[in-house]
């Protein structure tokens, strides 16, 4: 399954090579051009010279990870998150380090030797280290380099009622949608952009949009769902299983109102479940794309994911299918209204 391959591949911001190679192999033959740019964005084009509005679809390839900053004499690896990770989710997890995917664990002190009050405060990032079982610095240096990144060692699995559990659903779910969308046929120019470095400041999307200068851009994302016990319903942001989320605004973008209205109309018209993203926090590539050149119309269609930026996030296959249909229907609509 496409999403299995994508989520089990590893790609920290700036180290998206494995994901890029995988995506390239998936879309070859389905697009007219494939190229990369100076930052490593993978740009796939269908119908580059066709008339009609130029549409950019974007999904980011990178995921949050841990960068190795130090190797201690005892062979333990010290790290910092690259992208936003709550250190509380790191404790007692398994990780894979670097391109060689060296197995490691993030340990903590045994409960027996803790004072009860210790268990009330979170472990700080300085108290955590990756243990790969190396007995010394020299032994660790044989398999790990400074600057390597460590990734959650989570296996993709389907479970429950139409649910999927995996790491990096943010934003491999967007990558999977974009790959599948590129396998369909269109009459208008479609630019599928797999961006780099979203998690460290939306860096790839801006330069990609500058090269393309699209008339309209849709960002495909995995977004936070807080529909869990302890979280008030008005703080749920999105709910798993209730359809793709359409963003009105977040920290980086106010999405183009007529574009959002059209997406909602189309969802209603085609009986596609959808929800409005009910928070203005977070940011996406749409933030950079809308500011490109003289400004670009941008919207975000996102699959709700619980426990995002942790070892195991959870999404619904139904939301994925609905996100695919909504984007697909929008592209058809754009073609019919504005194509030749």
């Amino acid at each position, binding site marked *: 399954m496409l999403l299995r391959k994508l989520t089990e591949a590893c790609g920290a911001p700036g180290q998206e090579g494995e994901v890029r190679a995988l995506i390239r192999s998936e879309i070859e033959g389905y697009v007219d051009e494939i190229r990369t740019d100076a930052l490593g964005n993978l740009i796939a084009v269908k119908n580059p010279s066709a008339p009609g509005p130029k549409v950019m679809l974007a999904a980011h390839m990178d995921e949050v990870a841990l960068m190795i900053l130090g190797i201690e004499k*005892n062979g*333990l690896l010290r790290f910092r998150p690259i992208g936003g990770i709550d250190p509380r989710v790191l404790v*007692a*997890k398994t990780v894979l380090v670097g391109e060689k995917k060296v*197995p490691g664990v*993030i340990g903590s002190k045994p409960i027996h030797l803790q004072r009860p009050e210790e268990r009330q405060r979170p472990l700080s990032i300085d108290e955590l280290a990756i243990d790969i079982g190396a007995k010394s610095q020299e032994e660790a240096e044989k398999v790990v380099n400074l600057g390597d990144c460590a990734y959650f060692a989570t296996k993709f699995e389907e479970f429950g009622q139409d649910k999927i559990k995996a790491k990096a659903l943010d934003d491999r779910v967007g990558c999977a949608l974009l790959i599948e969308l590129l396998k369909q046929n269109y009459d208008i120019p479609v630019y599928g952009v797999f961006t780099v470095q979203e998690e460290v400041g939306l860096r790839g999307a801006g330069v990609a949009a500058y090269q393309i200068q699209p008339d309209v851009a849709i960002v495909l994302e995995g977004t936070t769902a807080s529909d869990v016990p302890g979280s008030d319903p008005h703080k749920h942001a999105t709910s798993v299983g209730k359809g793709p989320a359409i963003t009105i605004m977040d920290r980086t973008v106010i999405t183009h109102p007529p574009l959002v209205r059209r997406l909602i109309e189309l969802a209603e018209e085609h009986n596609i479940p959808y929800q409005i993203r009910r928070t203005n926090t977070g940011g996406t590539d749409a933030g950079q794309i809308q500011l490109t050149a003289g400004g670009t119309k941008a919207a975000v269609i996102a699959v709700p994911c619980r*426990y995002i930026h942790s070892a195991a996030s959870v999404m619904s296959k139904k939301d994925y299918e609905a996100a695919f249909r909504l984007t697909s229907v929008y592209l058809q609509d754009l073609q019919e209204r504005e194509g030749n």
Partner: protein
Amino acid sequence: MDIKQLFQDIASNSGVSGYEDQIADQIQEACPWVDEFRRDTLGNLIMLKKGKAQSDQKVPRVMLAAHMDEIGLIITKVEKEGFLRFSTIGGFDQRVLLGQEVTVHGKETYRGVIGAKPPHVQSPDEQRQAVKLEDLFIDIGFDSAEEVEGKVAVGDLATINQTSWNLQGSFMAGKAFDDRAGVAAMLECLKALDDLNFSAEVYAVATVQEEVGLRGAITSTYGIVPDVGIAIDVGFGDQPGLQEFQTIKLGGGPAIGLGPHVHPTLHKRMVEVAKEWKIPYSLDPSPYPGGTDAYAIQVTQAGIPTILLSIPLRYMHTPIETLDYNDVKLTGRLMAFFIAGLDNEFVEGLKCF
């Protein structure tokens, strides 16, 4: 049978205190080195290996004990949105649970993820604290209590879903190494005894319910009444956050116990055996008499001379306990040579202080 592989298999399998049957079955199926198997009322797996003595001769009776139960979770409530609330069986640090994958043992087994309210909907005060056990829940991917009905019920168990895996060299990480590593050391000992000349009757017991109060060791020792008891458990390995004096070194061989729970003559003999056979070891003094099966064995009936061997283990009671498998092998080897050296005169002398 490769004992290391068996160890990985039993560590990856589920056997929370009181529910160890599957583990006992797995061990029994894979262990060709003993003469008899039996289970007692609580579920202890008792394996008897007879020495090479005449049948009418009185021989020393040795009991080895390593517990096969693991800490786990128990479902306490099904929320109307289908999430499961839980409590712990045995000692878990609440901070290691967030984001773990679990298996819920309901009508069938169900995969789950331990979740909590995400950071951005937590108050600044909540963000500065550890997520409390009562605020955690298991997400098994069903959308309502109705969907969960008939699948998972209050009282069902959950275990951490963590397959053991190999790190660099002979290091390994996984769950339930406490104390299935002890079980593996016991099997290494039984296997090593096949190549040694010994007269003792060896009762190797995979005990139950250690994590909730040494309960299996209490009943199994009562049924055996050995001349010598050896408990094999895990000890705190060298790791960040602990001082050196609190720990024993991974790769340094078994740690030989010292303290009120250890018979002084057994300690002395164990050290001699290690030296004689050039088995690396460390010393593990402890002022606390409780905490392991050694205590339960020691106070059985009229009292049993007992010793504790500890296998160094990092990150105890977490899903990624880490050890050096060489230490497991060395622990088995040390016990085998110790057993081979036992005779009636020595065990009778244990009562003379």
